[in-house]
């Protein structure tokens, strides 16, 4: 008996010891806090320079943000936050017809090769934005020819209002830009840091290694004189470097180091087909200090949905942002080690009807302005019956429970003016009562012209909406077809590859798709959509009231009450003619390793990276 007890206790002791041992082995030695973070992106890196139209994609922008510090950035509340560490800008003269902004670089700021950052580096922006300068310098007209510096910045507010070439101060640390009017959003539309000009000069000269301090300052001086003297030959050498020289799909130790010179917190260490690796830059002093993340890896080309969710679950990546399906969101939320947030971005889905009130638009379908009252009634009926609430409830709320039916697209929810705008802009008609009451009202309008409507579907509508791979829109289309059939519209809405090219096709009566806002200027980028000459005007609307409001919004800085009034006016016009209706804000799902602190999604690009320097484990 005693012996057995003894055996038992030995067994117990041994098993306890082994359990303890297992426990010891099982818990990995708690290393110091991780200093690396892995982010997944669905598209792929193509260039260090994201300012050309060919390279202006999200992932290039993110890398540029991580490796370059600017004079300001947007925060998650859409406020512009200045970066006094790098420099400052102020309105130095404000008279009618003479509006000047002066930029000053703080002393001692350096590029990653040790060369000082000067206001000359801001001067490059003028070359990249002013068509007048390009013409004067013998580089051709960037608005019609292929620009020598293919920047995609020409033709905008800066280009329209800048006067002459900006002037540098004697110490080269300040630069003053002169405009012919008090342009709105002078911060957004004004100068910014792009690529270091000394490196650009050296690259143009064919150099393959970093310059010495003397060479660098000589290169900067040469750049200033090249620009000021409009040295066509020198500029023509630099243009191609800017346009395609920075393009790279692989970067390693053999890459010309001049291409990698930047002033950001991180430097690109390597790029391969798999990922972009960035490491903390030792010379960085252009902005807030990092909080503990020394290496950032962006894994590129990772598909949205399950692949991303499983990568987060497996710890292959720490941060993910995308527009997954409701199921993928549920999958993400089930991951114990990850935090998931859903926010709304500044991209919004909308329905627009072709009205073709401009002379060039030849659309003549049931919604055309030329159809008079009948077309107006049909448009109104179509929008009234449009199942916006259903779409939001069934398709959006499972992803982002905070999604609402948009009362305004010009002041999106979250904007302090949203409630005010939504109440006044006339869009409330399309949201009043219940869907069934709106459908009944719509039916009445259609029956005015087609008495049999409701029992039959006499009005044929071709609806364009997007690629077959887009699951959410596929579902939207199904809801719309059903809802519109109830009021007499026979909606044909097949998915179409290459839908973008068909937006101007007169065979379609209506489109729904996403408009993606890239900044938050005074006109809220709405004029592109509503102005008769707007770059994103696919409805063919030509409304003098809208055009007038847009001109006012784009020509000078206005008091905020006036801005709101003009914005409301634009939407009132759209509501009156019933050709445009916002549906919902695109949800943005962010999932990240719960141990990683300070990851906060922001509505504008670079979204979650906006405060990367505060990230830490």
């Amino acid at each position, binding site marked *: 008996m005693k012996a057995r007890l003894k055996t038992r206790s030995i067994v117990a002791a041994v098993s306890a010891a082994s359990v303890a041992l297992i426990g010891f082995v099982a818990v990995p030695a708690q290393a110091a806090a991780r200093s690396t973070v892995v982010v997944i992106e669905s598209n792929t890196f193509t260039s260090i320079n994201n300012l050309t139209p060919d390279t202006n994609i999200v992932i290039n922008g993110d890398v540029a943000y991580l490796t370059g510090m600017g004079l300001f950035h947007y925060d998650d509340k859409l406020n512009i936050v200045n970066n006094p560490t790098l420099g400052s800008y102020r309105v130095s003269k404000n008279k009618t017809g003479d509006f000047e902004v002066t930029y000053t670089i703080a002393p001692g700021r350096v590029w990653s090769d040790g060369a000082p950052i000067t206001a000359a580096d801001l001067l490059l922006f003028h070359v990249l934005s002013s068509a007048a300068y390009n013409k004067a310098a013998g580089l051709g007209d960037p608005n019609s020819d292929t620009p020598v510096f293919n920047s995609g910045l020409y033709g905008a507010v800066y280009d329209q209002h800048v006067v002459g070439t900006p002037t540098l101060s004697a110490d080269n640390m300040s630069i003053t830009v002169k405009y012919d009017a008090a342009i709105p959003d002078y911060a957004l539309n004004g100068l910014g840091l792009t690529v270091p000009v000394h490196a650009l000069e050296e690259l143009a000269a064919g150099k393959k290694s970093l310059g010495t301090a003397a060479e660098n300052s000589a290169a900067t001086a040469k750049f200033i004189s090249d620009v000021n003297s409009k040295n066509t030959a020198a500029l023509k050498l630099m243009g191609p470097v800017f346009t395609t020289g920075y393009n790279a799909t692989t970067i390693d130790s053999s890459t010309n180091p001049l291409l990698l010179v930047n002033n950001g917190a991180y430097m690109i260490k390597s790029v391969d087909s798999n990922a972009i690796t960035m490491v903390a830059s030792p010379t960085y002093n252009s902005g807030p200090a990092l909080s503990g993340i020394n290496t950032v890896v962006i894994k590129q080309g990772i598909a949205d949905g*399950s692949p991303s969710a499983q990568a987060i679950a497996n710890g292959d990546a720490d941060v993910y942002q995308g527009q997954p399906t409701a*199921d993928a969101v549920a*999958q993400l939320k089930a991951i114990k080690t990850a935090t998931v947030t859903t926010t709304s971005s500044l991209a919004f889905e909308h329905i627009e009807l072709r009205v073709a009130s401009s002379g060039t638009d030849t659309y003549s379908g049931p919604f055309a302005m030329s159809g008079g009252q009948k077309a107006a009634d049909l448009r109104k009926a179509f929008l009234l019956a449009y199942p916006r609430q259903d779409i939001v409830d069934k398709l959006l709320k499972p992803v982002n429970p905070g999604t609402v039916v948009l009362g305004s697209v010009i002041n999106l929810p979250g904007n302090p003016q949203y409630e005010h705008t939504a109440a006044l802009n006339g869009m409330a008609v399309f949201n009043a009562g219940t869907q069934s009451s709106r459908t009944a009202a719509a039916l009445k309008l259609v029956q005015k012209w087609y008495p049999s409507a409701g029992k039959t579907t006499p009005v044929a509508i071709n609806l364009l909406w997007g690629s*077959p791979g887009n*699951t959410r829109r596929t579902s939207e289309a*199904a809801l719309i077809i059903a809802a519109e059939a109830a009021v007499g519209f026979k909606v044909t809405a097949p*998915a179409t*590859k290459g839908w973008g090219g068909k937006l101007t096709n007169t065979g379609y009566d209506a489109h729904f798709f996403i408009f993606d806002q890239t900044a938050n200027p005074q006109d809220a980028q709405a004029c592109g959509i509503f102005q008769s000459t707007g770059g994103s005007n696919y409805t063919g609307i030509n409304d003098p009231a809208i055009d007038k409001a847009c001109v006012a919004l784009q020509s000078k800085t206005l008091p905020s009450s006036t801005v709101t009034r003009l914005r409301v006016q634009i939407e009132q016009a759209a509501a009156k003619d019933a050709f445009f209706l916002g549906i919902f804000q695109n949800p943005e799902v962010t999932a990240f390793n719960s141990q990683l602190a300070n990851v906060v999604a922001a509505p504008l690009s670079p979204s979650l990276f906006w405060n990367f320097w505060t990230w830490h484990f």
Partner: protein
Amino acid sequence: MTMFSRRSKLSEEVSGSDIFNKETEGLSQGQIVLKRFFRHRGAMVSLIVLFSLVTFVFSTLGFKILGIGYGGWWKYKITDLPALRTAGCSIELPGCPSLSLIPGKGFGLGDHPFGQDDLGRDYFSLVMRGAERSIEVMVVIGLVAAAVGITIGALAGFYRGLIDAILMRINDFIITIPIIVLGGVVSFHFGNKGILFLAFFLGVLSWGGLSRLVRGEFLTLREREFVDAARVAGASNRRIIFKHILPNAIGVIIVSVTLIMSGAILLESALSYLGLGVVAPDVSLGLLISQYQDSFTTRPWLFWYPGLLIIIIALSVNFIGDGLRDAFDPRQRRRISRKDRSAERAIATKK
């Protein structure tokens, strides 16, 4: 380790000629094939399964051919938008399937046997419509590929020479056109023409392997004695091709066509995954599983039911092809059993 050691006891009592002739005595070629096919258990089961499935699928939502139509026995159409079922589902997962197969708890389809999608559409009707489309795609691709592939292969193999060279270069040409590009092009220009339109073109691009196979078969068969005999007897080329060679190559053809068909259903799902296949509002099984690929852990029914149907269809078509292959193989006996093998050896040693 005993894989090869089959030298078991000799059974002297079985005479060799019995084994070879008993089975096929006094039967025509077709009867032999049928007999063999019916003995292939896998193929028979698959045939029954596939036949019942097709009947079930096509009767669910009804069909209309040349004006003669049948309304279908199922209460929902794919365009109906009933409210999401909440009774019996957990709160987070409305629209769960109502199919109940547990004997004790009652056996029944319920209101939405396969559940509902995000919009509330009845998933059973979606899956059935998807299965219809997928089966149609499969048949169209199979038929088109078979028609083109057999014709080209037969002509090339029979006539050889210049005709062969030209036809085989056409074959090479077809190989160089990426199917995925075709998917995109058809989707862009003819997105609204329906999936059968795409299936037709996919069939046109899918005959490469088959025609090479048929050509090879013809090249060998045309040298055989019975073809010479027919030619001497004054048979026309057409007669030789259709009456003498083709029947002998039919085994290879059928197997290859069944493989193309089961491949077609997967090709369609791959194209749909890439957004280049079936276009909404039409559905197919491939489109459904690719749309709901993320539902795997959250709302599995949206993924499993169409997936299950793809598997059942592809599996049964493959098994039928397998059975046909075995049945058409002229040398194939039903079973090479150990007994036969030993008997064979016994005969050989006797001689």
